């Protein structure tokens, strides 16, 4: 009779027939089994996990993340105050031969190996590539980076691409921008010399000429990767590249609108912003004349616009704040708009004349001066 007790596992619970029963009990190896963990995953991640394309990454002092080939997930432990009895399928854990206390009438016995205190969940995570830029003191191989940066392979590759990094002799490096700029200029010279189209550069030709100019082959082709994009439809075995408009600014150049400070002014007309030339070098050198010209140009200035046009003014014993006090007057913010720091001139032969603050006329002496240029 006792031999009819067939010890089974999860499958006997899952396939339990209606009107039949099974005993649930503690496994001979029941315990806390801290090496067993439950991880809740989305069904769509299952293939990546079952095909072993997933890893946990992180340094000992970081919270580890789970990386699939393309995504990174933070791992969160979620506790469960219920008692989830974990029942493995038969044969996965060796059972002791003579389980005691079993009711002979049941059709089987499903042994519980562990009560799970909870499970781990995944939270999708944005990866920041700052980690790569840190610590330039040593070189990293791909495997080093994978172990250090909490990002999936695809995210890591994209990050390295964004940094224009290149793998040389197994280590990833960021090439000096001046050097890349030099290769690019040589490439542009070569294009002119050889009558190449910048929209259809043959990789083999470009690289071999750059190599003959003394550049390493690896960096010559890296130059195409950084400044160009691959054109579909390769001719023969050689790849065809098009120099990318958006990336054609040589790497050494950092463009910023701030560079035009003191050279141009912008004006908002509706949704459009117009830029026009107004160079500090064309303005008078004495403060009184300088301010006169500036306030002919605009009746009111915001500090950030004005600053480039007066920062070169040096009057012994007067700071730039002193100059502003002497030649300008700060206008009060109006109710509807709340303008930032704004200056307004009241000038009569270099002498400060109080303007009527209530009147909204920026120039108190409009009749004596030509109207501001902007209103023309």
């Amino acid at each position, binding site marked *: 009779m006792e031999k009819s007790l067939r010890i089974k596992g999860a499958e006997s619970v899952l396939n339990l027939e209606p009107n039949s029963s099974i005993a649930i009990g*503690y496994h001979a190896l029941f315990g806390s089994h801290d090496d067993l963990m439950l991880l809740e995953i989305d069904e769509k991640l299952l293939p990546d996990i079952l095909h072993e394309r997933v890893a946990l990454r992180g340094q000992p002092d970081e919270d580890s993340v789970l990386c699939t080939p393309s995504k990174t997930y933070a791992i969160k432990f979620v506790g469960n105050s219920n*008692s989830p009895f974990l029942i493995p399928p038969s044969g996965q854990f060796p059972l002791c031969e003579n389980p005691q206390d079993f009711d002979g009438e049941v059709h089987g016995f499903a042994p519980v190996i562990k009560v799970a205190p909870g499970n781990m969940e995944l939270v999708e995570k944005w990866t920041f590539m700052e980690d790569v830029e840190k610590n330039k003191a040593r070189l990293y191989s791909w495997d080093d980076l994978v172990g250090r940066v909490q990002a999936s392979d695809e995210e890591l590759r994209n990050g390295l691409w964004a940094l224009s990094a290149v793998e040389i002799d197994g280590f990833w490096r960021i090439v000096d921008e001046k050097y890349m700029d030099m290769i690019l200029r040589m490439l542009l010279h070569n294009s002119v010399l050889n009558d190449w189209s910048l929209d259809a550069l043959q990789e083999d030709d470009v690289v071999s000429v750059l190599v003959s100019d003394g550049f390493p082959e690896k960096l010559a082709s890296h130059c195409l990767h950084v400044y160009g994009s691959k054109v579909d439809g390769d001719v023969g075995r050689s790849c065809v590249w098009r120099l990318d408009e958006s990336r054609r600014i040589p790497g050494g150049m950092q463009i910023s609108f701030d560079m035009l400070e003191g050279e141009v002014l912008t004006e908002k007309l509706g949704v459009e912003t117009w830029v026009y030339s107004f160079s500090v070098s064309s303005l008078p050198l004495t403060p009184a004349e300088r301010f006169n010209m500036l306030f002919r140009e605009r009746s009111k200035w915001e500090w950030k616009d004005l600053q480039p046009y007066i920062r070169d003014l040096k009057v012994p014993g007067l700071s730039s704040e002193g100059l502003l006090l002497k030649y300008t007057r700060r206008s009060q913010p109006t109710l509807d708009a709340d303008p930032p720091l704004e200056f307004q001139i009241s000038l009569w032969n270099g002498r400060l004349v109080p303007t009527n603050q209530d009147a909204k006329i920026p120039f108190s002496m409009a009749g004596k001066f030509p109207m501001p240029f902007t209103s023309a």
Partner: protein
Amino acid sequence: MQIQVKCSCGAENCREWVVVELQGTVELNPSCSQTHLQNLQIGQLCRLSSSSQESYTFTVGYHELTGSRVTLKKPLLVLKKVKGFMDVDESDDNKGDLPSSKVELDVIGIIRHKILFKTRPKALISSKLIQEHVAVLWFAHVNARKKEGWL
């Protein structure tokens, strides 16, 4: 460092585990002479004949629970630490000192279903004495749960 997630069961035939989940805890009867839980029977799981939903009863001692089979919205993987030194991403504290040896996680099973018992247990009447004894225990349990905001 990196901990590879392996799947020794093979991609297509990951074995299915099952969870029997109770809302509450099972405690050893104080009168029980046994001190080890291993090999002890907890109770009887019985599938009812009702047609539409898969209903079950789970009889633990003098209590009967009624529950049903639930398919998990997202499956749970059973991972096993291999070549494991303890304290590698354990629960919510991932800051254990990692030994230099390589640790891997092996997927040893998948859980897609659980049999969930979330109802209040029904006392099975056999002898008056036992019934009283069980009732007292149950109410103590209920009160404790009320405090936690469960019922």
